[in-house]
């Protein structure tokens, strides 16, 4: 009997990363900007989309890819804004992976699409680890989730370009100080862009978020 050690030294996410790189190439080839939105269930991801899509669709042709374990509910909510939406049901899967996005991209009319927004499965852990080939990552965190939520989920704060604090109008009712919550975010990731959304006098405020996304899309076009 002979014993031997076979050295491998490969990243466990390599299979996903290879497909993500292919996705990124396809998106670049068609001049499509891709945004991946992540956050806990109920953080307000779909509500954020319902409010930013009318403003973004004035300028861009958009397709939204919705990820959920079950139902077509979120895709239906998005379609009501007039934007095309595809629904992925993971049937228990806790995250979207690059292969699922590759498969959905085949259904999209790439020549007529400028922006793809992916709403990941509601989960603040698993989606963070899977590159989909996106250009921009946004994590949505709602104030009722608790002031110290950022400290409990460091990778979610680290592996994103921006964090949006939602439901800021509810902060006072759930004893959350949004300034402390923001400090927890930047204590983990000093370079992340932190924005707020919530209702002011009954109107959802999202202008800054829309400008942020537009700036990122235009910056990609320059290069």
């Amino acid at each position, binding site marked *: 009997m002979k014993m031997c050690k076979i050295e491998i030294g490969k990243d466990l996410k390599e299979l996903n990363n290879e497909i993500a790189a292919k996705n990124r190439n396809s998106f670049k080839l068609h001049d499509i900007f891709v945004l991946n939105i992540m956050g806990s269930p109920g953080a307000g991801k779909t509500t954020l989309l319902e409010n930013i899509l009318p403003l973004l669709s004035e300028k861009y042709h958009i397709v939204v890819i919705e990820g959920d374990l079950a139902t077509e509910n979120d895709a239906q909510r998005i379609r009501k804004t007039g934007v095309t939406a595809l629904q992925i049901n993971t049937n228990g899967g806790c995250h979207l992976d690059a292969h699922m996005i590759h498969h959905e991209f085949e259904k999209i009319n790439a020549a007529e699409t400028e922006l793809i927004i992916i709403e990941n499965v509601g989960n603040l852990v698993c989606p963070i680890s899977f590159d989909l080939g996106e250009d921009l990552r946004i994590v949505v965190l709602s104030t009722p989730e608790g002031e110290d939520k950022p400290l409990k989920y460091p990778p979610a704060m680290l592996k994103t370009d921006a964090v949006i604090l939602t439901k800021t109008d509810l902060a006072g009712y759930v004893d959350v100080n949004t300034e402390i919550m923001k400090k927890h975010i930047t204590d*983990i990731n000093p370079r992340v862009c932190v924005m707020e959304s919530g209702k002011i006098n009954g109107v959802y405020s999202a202008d800054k978020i829309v400008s942020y996304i537009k700036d990122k899309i235009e910056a990609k076009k320059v290069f």
Partner: protein
Amino acid sequence: MHETALIQNLIVVAQKTLEEHNVKRVNSVTLSVGKLSNAMPDALSFAFEAMTQRGSLKGAKLIMKEIPVTVCCLDCGAEYNPLNFPIICPKCNSIYYKITQGEDIFIESLDCEF
């Protein structure tokens, strides 16, 4: 829960490697797990055990090495191992850093019998 997806990838990578070698048995698989890799060692063990009941990794042991977080200061270039957030450079007190190690999970090696 994504630990099952990671172990599925491990099995695919291990099988590809084994196809190139004439191996009788795999005794153990060594993984290095970054502290910020977002994967839980217990869940990886459980998924590994459940998913290698048959196939080429049947009976193999999973050995995990924890990899600490290493960062590089973006202001003075110092390399250090932070223990907690906020991450502050011990040399120049800068809060700006780049993570250089501890975010990934690697399959290091397979210990095999020929």
